[in-house]
């Protein structure tokens, strides 16, 4: 029988909804149909149990497949690093757009209010560009496309203390960024097996070894951070 040609009775229609009912990925009206049918036909509970068994077996089969190798994620970022730097080209493109905006401001026959609005927008873009530039200079990461002399900040960073951190499932990107920023850390690798990220602490201004204090501060953010393990 063709998949599209099947003639259904009520029970078969409900049976088709059951897998979605047991996963909860079903519309309210369809869930109601299943529950109403179940009330009228208590023996149908056995069929719902069958679907629950199928779901458990499917999860077991998938979980037995293991994980992608720890190197897999590294390869993605190696590939990204080997590609042309779109961030720089985008920044340049935006700069050209900004210049064009400024030029238009002086040449376009628009009302004064619109011109001031355009000028304000241009100022915002300039400010953002300045912030991006500052971050890129400070981070010195491979994404900046910059270069440094031996013994420079990049080499110091390589010797800086590091740790492995796992975040809570519900943590948002903003939470994670803030938590790391608070302790002067940046992500340098990951996620590796177990969902851990390797972070590196920026050298302290005093030069003192304060990694344990910073790790403790990170651990204290329990609503964002799940685990922190010291590492070198």
């Amino acid at each position, binding site marked *: 029988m063709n998949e*599209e040609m099947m003639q259904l009775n009520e029970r078969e229609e409900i*049976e088709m909804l059951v897998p979605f009912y047991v*996963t*909860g990925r079903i519309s309210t009206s369809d869930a109601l149909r299943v529950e109403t049918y179940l009330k009228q036909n208590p023996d149908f509970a056995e069929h719902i149990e069958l679907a629950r068994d199928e779901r458990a077996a499917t999860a077991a*089969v998938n979980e037995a497949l293991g994980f992608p190798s720890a190197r897999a994620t590294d390869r*993605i970022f190696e590939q*990204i690093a080997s590609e042309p730097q779109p961030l720089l080209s985008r920044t340049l493109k935006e700069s050209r757009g900004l210049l064009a905006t400024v030029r238009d401001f002086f040449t376009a026959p628009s009302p004064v209010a619109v011109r001031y609005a355009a000028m304000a927008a241009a100022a915002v873009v300039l400010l953002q560009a300045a912030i991006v530039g500052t971050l890129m200079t400070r981070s010195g990461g491979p994404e900046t496309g910059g270069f440094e002399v031996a013994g420079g900040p990049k080499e110091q960073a390589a010797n800086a203390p590091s740790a492995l951190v796992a975040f809570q499932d519900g943590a948002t990107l903003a939470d*994670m960024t803030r938590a790391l920023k608070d302790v002067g850390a940046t992500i340098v690798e990951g996620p590796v097996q177990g969902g851990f990220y390797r972070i590196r602490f920026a050298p302290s201004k005093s030069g003192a070894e304060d990694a344990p204090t910073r790790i403790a501060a990170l651990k204290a953010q329990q609503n964002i951070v799940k685990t922190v393990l010291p590492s070198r």
Partner: protein
Amino acid sequence: MTSSADDADLLQRIARQDQLALRTLIGRHHVRLYRFLLRLVRDEAMAEELANEVFMEVWRNAGRYEGRSQVGTWLLSIARNRAISRLRKRRELGWDEDAAAEIADEDDDPEVTTQKRDKAAALRRCLEGLTVEHREIIDLVYYQERSVSEVAEIVGIPENTVKTRLYYARKKLSELMLVQGVDRGWP
């Protein structure tokens, strides 16, 4: 499952070439995506390579995501297209006769006979014996936890076909279980 709003936010950041956002997205979806691909292509190295291709495509084209579907659904859709394209090259798509034969042929193995008594283990073995097409729909619904409309989008078939294909996959599962000596009492 992750919040779709958070995932969409990550994609916006990735479109601005934010590598931390990409790492976070990978952390959330890598394992499920890899397993989905591995179930389709049955080759660990190929599944890993395809998963990486999906994330590279996201890195390059995150700006094209229009928010019409959940990010997870979008990723699975890209992954499936890439897997099919690769499998076509290897001419491997279609009925998995080898796997079905494997189940029937193992009757004499005492270890397998013991396993048959374990209904859950038999069910897991029979899931492996389904065709690629049936395995895929079962995985998408039960493991990837996609709705009818999301499966329709990923597989590229009408919603009614999603329901009937899943129905037949489950019936086939009952037939394979019967061969294993387990009567599920359905259909």
